[in-house]
């Protein structure tokens, strides 16, 4: 199964969203917040090399000085973003690229977070990939999170109606 960087992110964020998105029941294009994120992605760091693809698994915002950069709208959901970047590093390592680091930039709050992939991180990623595969094979979507983050999620209405 092909597991993308976005899927790793969703896995950490909400397994239900992961399942729905994989089954192409997407809600992102309906969400104002997602559109704002898109504009931030398109309008920041315009001079840097944009969108570096690892096959069809990852779409890296940009790569510079042995560093993978990921741009985020806010630093609210940092944990899932860190896993996403770790997965990018994992994919690059698998393809023979060593000594690559990661960085998450949050232009709106002028923050920058470094991400490294150590042995523990590799194990973490591999466990996560196995879990994702399991979830996507469920017949029904996983239950709603009922968390604070649901309120700003593009899937809110679908989940709670």
């Amino acid at each position: 199964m092909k597991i993308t960087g976005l899927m790793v992110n969703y896995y950490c964020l909400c397994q239900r969203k992961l399942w729905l998105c994989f089954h192409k029941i997407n809600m992102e294009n309906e969400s104002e917040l997602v559109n704002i994120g898109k504009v931030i992605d398109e309008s920041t760091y315009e001079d840097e090399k944009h969108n570096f693809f690892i096959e069809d698994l990852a779409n890296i915002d940009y790569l510079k000085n042995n560093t993978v950069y990921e741009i985020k709208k806010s630093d609210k959901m940092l944990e899932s973003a860190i896993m996403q970047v770790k997965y990018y590093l994992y994919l690059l390592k698998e393809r023979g690229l060593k000594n690559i680091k990661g960085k998450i930039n949050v232009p709106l709050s002028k923050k920058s977070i470094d991400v490294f992939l150590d042995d523990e991180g590799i194990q973490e990623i591999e466990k996560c990939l196995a879990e994702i595969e399991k979830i996507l094979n469920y017949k029904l979507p996983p239950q709603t999170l009922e968390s604070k983050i649901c309120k700003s999620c593009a899937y809110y209405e679908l989940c709670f109606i």
Partner: protein
Amino acid sequence: MQNSYYLFSNGELKRKDNTLRLSTEDGTISDIPIEKVYDIYVFGELNINTALLNLLSKYKIAVHFFNYYEHYIGTYYPKESNLSGALLVNQIQHYEILNKRLKLAKLFVSGSADNILRNLKYYNTRGKELDNSIQEISELMTQLSYMDSISSVMGIEGNIRKNYYEQWQIIINKDIEFEKRVKRPPDNMINSLISLFNSLLYNKIITEIYKTQLTPTISYLHEPFVKRFSLALDISEVFKPLIVDRFIFSLFNKNMIDESDFEKQTNSLKLKESSFKRILKLFDDRLKTTITHRTLNRIVSYRYLIRLELYKLIKHLIGEKEYDPFKIWW
């Protein structure tokens, strides 16, 4: 908030950079920023070109076209970008397996009947004699569960509507001869308004379906070949009592419409253009009416209620939660 645009002028609609530009025959030019457009309804004679269609597709805006008689003639439905193979398979399965289809068909009819009863009870408490009808329709609803074919479910639906329409002379404080629904052509003011606003509701629902992953041609109560987008017909049953019927009652009972708003065609009635514009505006306002949704605890518009209904249908189709048709709760 994005708006629906209703275009009556004759002239040209084209793309001007990232904006829609309407140039009318009398020389006026108006620009509509594309981000503000939810969907478009064209009633005039417009020239359009592919550059415009390109822009509309990019922003996924459906355009509904009407002819001189205000009859719906078709929709420019941009390329589907919301496709879910998994959902399509489920949508077809629920059509093909009779029990699954019957279940949905009955839910659409019972949802519609619930809302019809809500309307009747409302007027009943306001001194209109509707007790008999309320009882008869409630009885028809209980028969629904014994029906084992789609045509018999349709039959019940027809009988409920027939009984309901028979009460309109009581509900509407006007002396209009309205005994039954006549469609082709609508023979009086009421029939003519029902045709017009049912058709507009149908188009509103098409716009909403387009924004989801549902396929508009696969339906359950109506046969998928009766109309191009027959799923919209299924959904419209649930919403007609709230959106169309109540609207027509209030037009008459609040004296917002009378004979002078219509012009006689060879064998039907048609709203005059100025009246049509005025009433369309009222209808659009109605769709923007908001309520606090009980389950979501969010403020939603009538228009958005339609979308939520589609989400509920999606959840039913993927087997997550049984569809529970929308009920007027106020």
